[in-house]
């Protein structure tokens, strides 16, 4: 109990330091996300594969984010992991997306995701340019880097989770515009699929030295400050 209190205090202190609004939200004991609740699209032959699509802008690091989550997924027991960037003529600032599938056994189908279970959006302004919910399975999840509450978004039959990753990252000492590690914390909280400790470890592994720690801290604080809405 004592260590638990100390842990809570450290987190709260850190949040006050970073001038982040403390949201007293219970850490879920069970994954919020249940694969079997979703009606699978006919395109997918295997229903044990979790399909995620990451939307960002060229140069924003959506691919790096998906790669880090791929490492963490593998580390936490998903031996089948496939991360496939979308191939085309990308340029900085233009909308891009990447697919990440994971399952407990090897994945043989490398074709692009057409019916994701969840989408992760690194920039809420992308919602005006891209149909991020395209093909999203019924009762699917949309995780958005946004200063707004989940209720501010209307996606029929979908769940929305938001976190102000842009601000949390800035307060955490990351250069302006670096949101691809914070969003991993939001993904962790909204899905409950991969423990935040494993996600943070994967972030530290990706960035050598002090930057790794800084990025991992931002992900952890984002995790604590992710707001998950209902359907």
């Amino acid at each position, binding site marked *: 109990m004592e260590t638990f209190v100390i842990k809570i205090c450290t987190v709260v202190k850190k949040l006050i330091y970073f001038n982040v609004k403390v949201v007293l939200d219970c850490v879920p004991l069970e994954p919020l996300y249940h694969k079997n609740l979703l009606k699978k699209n*006919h*395109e*997918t*032959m*295997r229903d044990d594969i979790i399909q995620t699509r990451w939307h960002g802008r060229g140069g924003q690091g959506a691919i790096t984010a998906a*790669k880090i989550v*791929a*490492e963490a997924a*593998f580390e936490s027991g998903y*031996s089948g*992991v*496939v*991360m*496939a*960037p979308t*191939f085309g003529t990308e340029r900085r600032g233009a909308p891009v997306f990447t697919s990440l599938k994971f399952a407990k056994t090897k*994945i*043989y*189908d*490398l*074709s*692009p995701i057409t019916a994701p279970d969840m989408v992760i959006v690194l920039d809420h302004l992308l919602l005006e340019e891209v149909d991020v919910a395209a093909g999203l399975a019924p009762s699917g999840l949309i995780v958005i880097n946004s200063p707004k509450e989940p209720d501010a978004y209307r996606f029929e039959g979908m769940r929305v989770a938001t976190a102000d990753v842009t601000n949390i990252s800035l307060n955490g000492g990351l250069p302006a515009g670096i949101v691809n590690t914070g969003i991993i914390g939001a993904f962790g909280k909204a899905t409950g699929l991969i423990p935040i400790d494993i996600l943070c470890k994967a972030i530290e592994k990706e960035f050598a030295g002090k930057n790794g720690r800084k990025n991992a801290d931002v992900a952890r604080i984002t995790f604590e400050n992710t707001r998950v809405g209902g359907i």
Partner: protein
Amino acid sequence: MHIIESGNVAAALGVKLAEASVIAAYPITPQTPLTEKLSELVDAGEMNAQYIPVESEHSALAVCIAASSAGSRAFTATSANGLLYMNEQLHWAAGARLPIVMCVVNRGIGAPWTVWNDHQDSISQRDTGWIQLYACDHQQILDTVLKAFRLAETVSVPVMVCYDGYILSHTYMPFELPDAEMVRRFLPPFAPEYFLDPKCPKNLNTVTLPDIRPDVRGNTAPGYMEIRHNLHMDMRKSMDVISDIEIEFKEIFGRGGYPFIEPYRVNDADYVAVCMGSLSYHLRDVIDMLRKEGIAVGAAGLRVYRPFPDKAVADAFSHKKGLIVFEKALSYGNQGALFADIKAALYAKTDRPFVRNYILGLGGREIKTTELADALRNSCKPSSATTDRPEWIGLKM
């Protein structure tokens, strides 16, 4: 140790583990990250190799030909039009019996320009005298690079390691990184029987006359035709070497074991879907679904295209009811090249399956799982017959 990386990095790490000593390459999408990774490894001192930047693919292979002639373990990589630009040197490397290994990151050929995946580039080079191996995932890319060097140096024939552009080259997945000491045990240093040495000057591959003639020492030397016959016979014999290497690799690393055909639910299948590269893995999910519908179908990935493993094909498939050959390449005006080869391999068998052909995925056209399933449902019937022209999947016209 498992790592998660792209297919191109898997290939680069294979080349590093193989301790290639000369690398010459010209960047071309989707091969570029492979050569970038190798240049980084050489620059960082993690590879004891010469990285020679060149102005074209023709020169890249010319450098490898020179390096290999001088006794170095040489590597290059390319895609699509880059491979075609090498064409003259491809024939030369094979004729000169140089054990060069090259990754071909499969991409469609222009015109019109495409950077996306199909197999037309490597298939169109099938008669250059190179051995062609195809990989289905990152583990196979890395492992096949190691096996390719061992094979090339054993039979003195250059080897292409082909893998799907983007689908494998740019996709990240976990694979096992073999231990360097174990790789050294499997692949000893390159020790050629003869090589160019300034201390002992020699002429290699000079003009040969139509007939045999005495050489400088007065011994009867083979003419052009004998030399070409030897290349062909050594290619045929290389199939035994491919089998032996596969067995030894499995003993050391515990992986593989399928030198020519990698089967999936083929044993009790009446019909078999046959193809090369990552598509043969993609088909596995389709097979599982069709099995649930009661269709006795399996999938087989051909790992070797040249030399063509005709005996393995005949042994594996002659007693089946039907074969459905999926190809990302086409011999224009005729049919799929693999389709024709498979039919030829089965021709001598009195009781042989029907063979059908589907062309798909050209220039990166998306291959939909539902389309594969529909093609197999339509084909896996006792009433199906062998066709002489391919059908197309995903054609929007």
